[in-house]
Each structure stands twice: as C-alpha cells, then as structure tokens.
C-alpha cells in the first residue's frame, strides 16, 4: 500500500533536512515542472488527477485553479495561499504534514504557484502549531538558500517569493476568505461571494487558497502522473487520505489510507476498535461540522461521494467517535459552544443564534431544559441553514446538532423530562 504523503515522515524527531529530502527524490518534481512543463500543463495534470480539496469542502482543485484569469491583461500579482490554519475540532492531519514533511509542502507550493503563475505564495499556519512553524521556517530558509525559492526558481526564469504567516488563532482565520482578511491585517470576517478569490482575492488580486493536505499532493501528481494518483483510491476518487480517529477508541491516531477506506476499517483495524466496555453509538466522519453517522454506516466508504449518500460529509476525514457511555447532549453542547465562541460576529443568525442554542443545550445537559427547547433547537437548525448565514460556519455547526437531535432524540427528551443525565457526568 502506497503512502506517498507520509512515507518519509518520521515518528519522532526532526523532519528531513533539505539534503535528506533531496536524497529521497525531493525537488525532482519541481525541476520537472519548471524545467519541462508549461503552467497550463501542470494545471492540466492536476485537473486530470481529479484531486479534490482536503480542507473539507472537496472542491475539485484543478477546476478551482482554472478560475484564475490568465493571459494578456490579467490582474497582477497573483497569489497562492496554503491554508494550514487547522482548527476543526478532532482534526490534526495537516499538523502531521507541516511538522513531518515541510519540504514536501514547500515543493508542492512552488509547483502550484508556478501552475497558476503566481508571484507570491503564503503559507498560513495555525497559531498553536509552533513546532510546525519553526520547522517550516527552517525548511523555507534552506529552500531559499538552495535556489528553490526566489527570483529564479531552480534556475528557471520563474520567480516566486514564499512568506509564511502564523495565524492570530481563531477558527475563522481558517475559513478561506476570513483567512485572506486575516492576511491583510483585517478582522477575519468572511467575504461576500461573488467575487470569488480566484478573481478577487488577497489584496484584491487573483488568489488560490488550498488546504495543506491538498497542496501536498501537487508534487506527487506532477512527479508520478494523474493516472497513478487516480489508481491510489479504492473507488472513483483518487489518492490516499489522511484519516484520523479520536474518542474512546483503543489507539486514537492518524493513518494515510487509500481514499474510500471504510469507517469500519479505520475504527476497528487502525484505531483498534472501541476500548473494552465501550461500544460505538455514532461518529462524526469528518470533524466537528459533519453530520453524525451510526453503526449502520460503518461500511460506507470514507470518500466525498459515499458519505454524501450516507447523509454526511467527508469533511476533514477526522473521525470523532461517540460511544454508549458518553452523553450525546453534552457532546453537541460542547461542539455548539465551540462554534458559538468562534463565530466572527459578522452576521446575525450565527452571532446571536449559536450562543442561544449553546446555552439551551447546556441548560438541557445540566437538567435545566424546558418543554419546547427541542422544538426551538430544531427550528433554529433550520434557521441557520446554508444561504441564510453569511458563511458556512453556522450551517456547519448545525450538522452534528441536527443529526444528533434526530439520532439520539431519546437522550435529549430524557434530559428535559428527567432533569438529569443518565450517563452521569460525561465520560466518567
């Protein structure tokens, strides 16, 4: 089984130096791209691979790149932004790549920037990822010294400057357009679309924003071809995916597996199954803003298409497991509190709706629920639907709640009716 993204990542210690990285074939794809390929050829390769964004939305990367205006009269400069502001609860995949393979990310970034003909690239890293920041900083200095970054990338006529920026540390900084505002030194409120970033992005110029895991693929696709990439997946969707599992499983962790691996395999084989005495009641397949699935969905392939059919989303591919001894009310109360806290405060439904729901959920959890609370929550989940709010934060926050209210209805009802939690304090 191939693990292109993580094969050279070490379990402990410092990541490969430039020399070590080059010894394993590093920067060969870059030389190939800038030396032998035109930008449209690179774009075509990525488009052909069918690579879909690993940040959560799953938008086809090649298609997105195609929106960048090229040719005479285009707006300059153009920017590439790598989104490493990984703050989705339960998700820690980008961290692995940032800490373990900084040169891999840098190489891919240069190739992607070349593909969209960008002059400047930014790598935007979550505030808490200090180790990643330090390692990336060192790697970037090495790459610059080696002539991979700068006026003449790998001796070609292509010039690229890469900056890396550590986020101020809010969930909204990871939202595509909130990130752009944050980079510009503004409040990370989302921007209205259209115009979309490929046309009007950073500093008002064409900009592509891609997730770290998505970006990491670029050098492999260029180096080994789109067909190879497509062949890595189990189903229709190509590549491998960094899947995570957390909750009361035996071995919480992160694994690079073929795209379309089932949840059952991830939870039962790689994570070692549930801890003794705990059993699975449900799981969030892709981070905190995806719908709950239950045991009946364990055999669903963890890819974009299959999970959508199952009524949820692949999201970040970070499975969060809910077990039979943890109260689902407390579980979603925590999640909703997180989203209420991370609302940027720009639009009314999110800013004022989420805190109300969070407090209602907390009240229910703590035995202060009232008749009508569940109806109110259901009403609000519809109220915070996509399109009603300014960005996707609140609708995302509604996904676990909506599904929990449906799947674990009895728990909510008993909380309200009995005024207590039948599980005792969560997790005890």
């Amino acid at each position, binding site marked *: 089984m191939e693990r292109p993204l993580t094969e050279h990542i070490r379990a402990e210690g410092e990541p490969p130096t430039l020399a070590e990285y080059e010894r394993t074939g590093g920067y060969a794809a870059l030389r190939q791209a800038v030396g032998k390929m035109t930008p449209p050829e690179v774009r075509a390769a990525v488009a052909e691979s069918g690579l879909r964004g690993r940040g959560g939305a799953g938008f086809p990367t090649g298609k997105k790149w195609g929106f960048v205006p090229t040719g005479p009269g285009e707006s300059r400069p153009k920017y590439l932004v790598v989104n490493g502001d990984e703050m989705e609860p339960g998700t820690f995949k980008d961290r692995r790549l940032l800490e373990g393979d900084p040169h891999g990310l840098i190489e891919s970034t240069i190739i992607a920037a070349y593909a969209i003909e960008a002059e400047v690239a930014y790598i935007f890293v979550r505030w808490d990822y200090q180790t990643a920041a330090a390692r990336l900083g060192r790697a970037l200095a090495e790459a610059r010294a080696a002539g991979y970054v700068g006026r003449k990338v790998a001796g070609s006529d292509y010039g690229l400057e890469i900056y890396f920026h550590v986020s101020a540390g*809010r969930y909204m900084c990871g939202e595509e357009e909130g990130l752009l505002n944050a980079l510009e030194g503004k*409040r990370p409120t989302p*921007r*209205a679309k*259209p*115009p979309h970033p490929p*046309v*009007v992005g950073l*500093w*008002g110029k064409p900009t592509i924003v891609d997730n770290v895991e998505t970006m990491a693929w670029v050098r492999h696709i260029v180096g080994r071809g789109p067909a190879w990439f497509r062949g890595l997946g189990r189903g229709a969707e190509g590549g491998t995916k960094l899947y995570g599992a957390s909750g009361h499983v035996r071995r919480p962790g992160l694994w690079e597996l073929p795209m379309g691996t089932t949840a059952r395999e991830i939870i039962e084989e790689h994570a070692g199954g549930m801890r003794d005495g705990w059993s699975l009641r449900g799981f969030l397949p892709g981070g905190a803003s995806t719908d709950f699935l239950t045991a009946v969905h364990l055999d669903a392939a963890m890819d974009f298409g299959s999970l959508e059919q199952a009524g949820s989303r692949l999201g970040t591919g970070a499975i969060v497991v809910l077990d039979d001894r943890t109260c689902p009310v407390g579980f979603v109360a925590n999640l909703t509190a997180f989203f*209420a*806290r*991370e*609302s*940027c*405060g*720009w*639009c*009314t*439904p999110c*800013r*004022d*709706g*989420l*805190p*109300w729901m969070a*407090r*209602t959920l907390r*009240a229910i959890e703590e035995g202060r629920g*009232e008749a009508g609370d569940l109806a*109110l929550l259901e009403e609000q989940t519809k*109220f915070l639907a996509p*399109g*009603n*709010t*300014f960005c996707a934060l609140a609708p995302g926050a509604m996904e676990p709640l909506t599904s929990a209210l449906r799947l674990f209805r009895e728990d909510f009802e008993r909380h309200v009716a009995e005024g207590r939690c039948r599980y005792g304090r969560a997790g005890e």
Partner: protein
Amino acid sequence: MAKIYIENIPYEVADGQNLLQACLTLGFDLPYFCWHPAMHAVGACRQCAVKQFKDEADTKGRIVMSCMTLAEEGIRISIDDPEARAFRAGVIELLMTNHPHDCPVCDEGGECHLQDMTVMTGHAYRRYRFTKRTHRSQNLGPFVQHEMNRCIACYRCVRFYQDAAGGRDLDVFQWHNHVYFGRANDGPLENELSGNLVEICPTGVFTDKTFKRHYARPWDLQTAPSVCGHCSLGCNTIPGERGGRLRRIRTRFHGEVNGYFLCDRGRFGYEFVNSARRVRWARVKQKEVPAAEAVAHVAALAGGGRVIGIGSPRASLESNFALRALVGAECFYSGLAAKEQALAALVLEILREGPARAASLHEAACADAVLLLGEDVTQTAPLLAASLRQAVLTQPIEIATKLNIHRFHDAAVREALQKEKGPFFVATADATKLDDIATTVFREAPEEVARLGFAIARGVQGDAPPVVDLPPERRQAAGLIAETLRNAQRPLVVAGVAGGSAEVIQAAANVAWALCAAGVPAKLLLVLPECNSLGAALLGGGDLEAAAQAVRSGAAETVIVLENDLTRRAGTETVEAILSAPHVVVLDAIENATTARAEVVLPAATFAETNGTLVNNEGRAQRFFQVFEPEGEVRGSWRWLGEIEQKLKIKNEKLKIDSDGEEKRSSVPQQSWGLQRQEEAERFDEVVAAMVRAMPELAGVVEAAPGAGFRVAGEKIPRQAQRQSGRTAVPGEASAEERSVPADADTALAFSMEGYAGIPPAALVARYRRPGWNSNQAINKYQQEVGGPPRGGDAGKRLFDAAGLREKPYFSTAPAAFVRRAGELWVTAAWHVFGSEELSVLSPGVAELSPEPYLGLSPEDAAALGAKDGDLVELRIAGGPAHRLRARVRPALVAGVATLPAGLGELAAMELPAWGKAVTIGRTEGGAA
C-alpha cells in the same frame, strides 16, 4: 430599466440597484439594518431576506438577502412569503436576545429604527430565557453618548466612521456576540463627522449627548426646516425645540449639498441659542425698554440723518437687505474687514464670471481628480471632507466595474479596490486630515502653494500665465498634476479663503479655467468663512475701514450694526473708530464686545427664531424657517429694521406734509418697500420681494422655498408631530391649559400639529416620519428613488451659474517666491472646527474641544527659538502688542511659517498672514528647564 416580479406582479425599476433599494423605492416595507443608501450593502444583518424563485413554476424558492441581490430583469421574488416573513422575524428575535428592554428610558425611543423594524416583522414575545451579554460603555467626549448594551452589531457605525468619514479611532473589537464598537480607550471621538453616528446607528448605542442634557421625546419636539449657520456649505438641518429651548439638530436630506450627514460643529454648535448670554429685551442706554420705545428711538436717530448700516456675513440676506433699505445702498457696509471683503468678492467674481461651475458637495463627491490648494477643509468645511473621501474612489470604482461587481455591493467593491485611490493632490503649509488619501502632498508656504497652482494652470494650457523661478522638480510635479487633471473626466479644484491668500484662490481659478479651456469640465469648490459670506458679497457695500472712515469724517453719526461683533473682525483702530460714533445701534442675539458698547441693543432672533435666506459657497440660496417663538422680545433683525423703517416712513410722510417738502434730508433713504399698511411691512415674503426688485440678481431667492401662501390641500405644514396625546401635552410640563396656536403669517408652516400630514416640498420638510417609519430612515419615503433626490427636487435655488468660456482672462500674476526672513515668522491662520467659529463655541461641548490659543511652530523654528512643545512664547505681529501663547510644535509645518488658531479670543481680529517675531519666555512645569 429592469422588469422585476414581486408577488408575481411586474414592476419597472432602475438598472443596477439591489432588490432592497428597488423594493423600498416601490413603496414596499422591507426591514433592514446594515444597509444604508449612502453606504450600500454588506449583507451582515440578514434582516432584508426575501424569497427568490427561479421562474413561475418554482414554488419552493430560496431565501436571499435583498440587499445583496441585483434587481435584474425578470427576477421573481416574494416579500410576503411565509418562510421569508418568519426568517425576518427570526432575525429580529435574535437581535433582541441581547438588546435591553429599556425603550422607555432610551433616548432613541420613538424614533428608533430597531423599534420600527421589530414592529414591522411582528416579533413580540421573547423566548430567550438566559442572561444578556453586557458591555461597559465608554465616554466618547461631549457629543456622542455611548450605550453598547443596546448594540445589534449592524456594523454601520464603523463603516461610516472609517470608510465614509476617514476616522481611525472607532473600531470593532472582540468577537462572536461580544463584538464591541468603540474606541481603544475612553476619550472624545476624533473625527469631525462623529455626530453622524447618532443618526447612522439604528438604535440607541450612539445618541446625542447634548440632547440628553435637555432631553425631550422626539415627538414632543417642534421642528422646522433649517440651514446650518456654522460654515459656508449650507447643510440642511432640522432643529428641534421644546419649551423655548433648542434641544438638538438633525440632518435634513439634501441630494446636492449634505446628503444624509452633518458635521459636528453643525450638529452640536446650536447651544448658543439657549445661551445665558442671549439678548432677550431691547435696551437703550443700558436700560431695558419696550420694543416700541426702542424702535422709536432708533427711528429718531435714523431720521436725524448721517446714518450708516453695517451688515454681516452671518445674518440672512433679508436682514442685510432690510438694513441696506433702511440706510440706503450707499450708506450700507458689508460688515467685513477690507481683506475678507476682497476675498469674498474675488470668490464671487470667479464663480460668476469664470467658466468653471461651482461644485456642490455631491458634485465634489463625483469628481475623479482633485487638487486641493492651501486649506485644511476638514476644519473649515468639514462635510466637504466626506465628499473628497468619496471622490478618490471615483476612478478606482472602475476596477470593480470591470470585474462585474455592482456598486451597491460595498464590501466586494472595497475588496477589489483595496487601497487604490484616485488622484488627489494636496498643497498646504501644514498637515491636513486628508493627507491620508492624498496621491501627493506638497508642504509649502501659501505663496508657494499659489505658485504651484499657477504652474499647474500653465501646464494645462500654454497661454496661462507663467511662474518665474520655479525649481525644475516643482515644475515637473506641476506638469504631472496638470496632465492628470487634464485626463480626468470631472476634475475638481478646491481652495478657500481661510488662508487669507487671494493668490491661492486665483491659482485655483486659473487651474479650473485652464481645464475648461482645454475642454475638460472642471469644477471649483471655494470655501468661505461664514454661512452667508457669499450673500454678503452679493449685497456689496463698503468694508469696515470705509465705515470707520465715514465715522471719522463725520459723515456718519449713527451706526447700525447688524449681527456683527466688530471686535472679531477688524483691528482695534478700525473698530474703535466705528464704535466712537455718537450713536451706535446693535442688533444681535448674543451679548458681545460690540453690544457692550452700543447705545441701543435690539434682541435679534437666531436662525431658530426667525426666517431667512443664506447663500452658500456655491451660490445656492437656501431658506431657514423659524422653529419656535422665542422668549423675550426677540425678533428677526429684518423685522426690527422693517419696523424702524416703517416708523421712519410714517414720520417722514408727516414731516413732508408738515413742511410741504421744503427740506430734504440727505441720508434718509429714498427707497421704500412701497407698503401701504404697517402690518404688511412685517411680512417676510414682502422683504424678499422688495429685495429682488432692488437687486434682480437675487431673483432666485424667491424660489428658495415656497412662500407664505403655499398650501397643500388648503393646509399648512405642521411644525409638530401628529400625536394621539393632543396638543396640551407639548407644554404639559408647565401647564395643562389649552393654548392658542401662535399665528405664522410669514411662512407656510404652522406652530401646530394640525395641517398637511403628507410629504411637502423638500424646502418645507420639518421632520421625517411616515406610518411605521419613525426614525430618520423614513427619509426613504421622501425621495423619488431611495438614495436619490427628494420628491419634488432638492430645496434651494442656485442664484447664478458659471459664465461661458469667452471673456474672463486668467489672473495674470503669480506671487513671488516665498523668502524666509531671518528672525521672523510668516504667521498664518490655522482654522479649527471647534473654536474658530464665533457662535458654535458658545456650546459647552464645542468649547471643551476648542484649543487654547497657541503658536504653531515648525520643528526647525521651534529649535531656533529654543521652544519646546508647551513652552510659553511671546508673539508680536507687525510691531503690535505682545501675545503670550503656548508653543505647539507642528512636525509637518513648513519652516519659516507659523500658525495661529483662527477666531480664538484676542487673536480673532488678527489679519493674517503677517510677519511676526516670537521669543521664548518660559518653560512649562513638565518641560526640560
């Protein structure tokens, strides 16, 4: 035009609008908060949701924000859709989760947009049962009261303050539902337009702190259309009164002049009307006398011959004219010192005889390239700053247009534009508060500013007069500016008289004229010092030195001074000469150094207590109307003077009959209003008619507003709001007695709540209130198209337009280069929005923000004088008396030039610029000794 379908009914709407604006224009009631017609849409509040359908067959539809959706051809929407209604009610419910239920004690109550929108959506019962988030509010200075707990986070305040007004000290802080709109620390808001927050805020977060001190419920206020008297722009206002006290000023929308906004001096400078220093009763020789006795006394003096009148640029055309009519044109003096008069006359000459049209504020905002010469307009004409901040976006907007971003989509436009600014060139001696948007800033002495202007004109048209000895790099810069202006579609040249330099104004005119000659329709915006400076220039008359000469020569024995504190205007010698006349009669509203010297003082009405016409800096005649009946024997000056003339006329006729024409008194005016009965002499419209007869160039004044005979459906326009509580409630705090309504024979307005309840012509709009719309957002309903001109057109009338291209030659002489003098300073006037203007400074808040008199020094000159910031220095100007002032080091000020704050205390009458000498005499406590 685009055809849109609302509830399946087709409507025609203008192209390029958003649905919200289109629906409001069509008369639909759709709630909104974050959108504002002057600031466009950002989609934050989600209040204006409607249902959009794909086509006729689509019954499901989807919720869209009407402010963010183009009203494009064929679009089908429903406002009434149950889901859309529920959504809008839901948004209000959420906003209300934290909004306090303090309407009964909130100053916004009764004119609160949030109240209106809450009622409109039907949300009534509170389901949220948890505690509300609370904030600590801030002290934002003397004008704006802050109550953050009421905030619904619509973001309008920061968008106005930062984007429209250019302020930096109000911002959004914090996160999620704790977002906080305020300053980093307590302290007065620094922007001159901060008071607009009061009207921009849809609820009671920002309220009028001056109003709070003498609060009245908005529906209990008596209001009338008015015009601001605190600078030359002539912003339209609605003052509100209750119980004989003026309580506040609000904006009256004017499409060409002030739009939706006012500056802080205009909004908060009104309190002089309530001043303890008001003259309330007539007095003769320090003794209060009945009005009739005072009138008889003055008539006797005037009848004695050798009488001159001194007018005023802060009095109305009508009052000035009444004086001119009383004393005769040849004995009428403008009330301006020689230099000020010459400058005002120069501006009038340029605007009337030159080819460049005077720009309105709206036209200024539409300019696509701006040259600003010699003046920090943020201090002399503050609202102009907002227009110029908009003008620098005119060219960059093209970037958004090319990207198919609609203008209404404010956030997207700003993202596309980023920091892109159109051409804006500033040349002044010291830093201005517009430097942040300038393409290039030139820091030069006034003479050099004028030379730069002359050189630019020369760069535009080769036949414009040359500038000798201009350094090559400056010549090159002038050439580049000339090219930029020439390539613009609507260039604008801004200058003003505050700097006291005729050459700067001439340079501005030359640039605009050269552009016109080159086929570019350039406009000129020249700022004058006072509300009727241009009116005074139109009326003409000699200057104060000439008046002094008339007294010295014995030609004048009686001097009638109209609303003019001479001691602020001219040097001691001139003023002393005038006030040493045997008889001095002063009409004024406020006790001042001139009233103190008068034999007769007549209590003049302020703008709020009488009617009148002012001519703004673009030549627009605008009418202000009496708001309330003042306490005491206060009357409009025009009325006092009319009564005096009437008295005199009766006496003269009697005299004529008695002596059968044997003796003709030389100074007794021959003109008369030709009135038959005394009561008619007091009619305002008659004064206007007589003025227009005497001075045909003022013909437009008649059209400035409908006359006293104007009625709608036979009814007058009420000054009071229609209420259920009845008219006795208004004076209810004093008495429950039914009072008779004071008659108003002078105007089409009534001192009553009875009258025409519909929308009158803009010049007669006394309030903005329509059913369901009790806040100023009701302005929508008073406009032809939301955001556009008022129904029936804008108020006021331009008295003249620019001349054709033909005759007017360029001003031919550029000044010589500025040469510093060793040991001397070229002292110029620095205008301050708070402090430089005579009347507004009587408002406590304005006084609080006024600077202490100071001497502004460049770092180089300060070093040469050994003066540090705050040190005491002694300044002598042209060998005059010594003035002790604090030194203020001005980092950007040109070396060799010093600044003195204009209009402050003993410095007010100083004629600047002038050469002065300064010595450092002491240290402050904290200074390095």
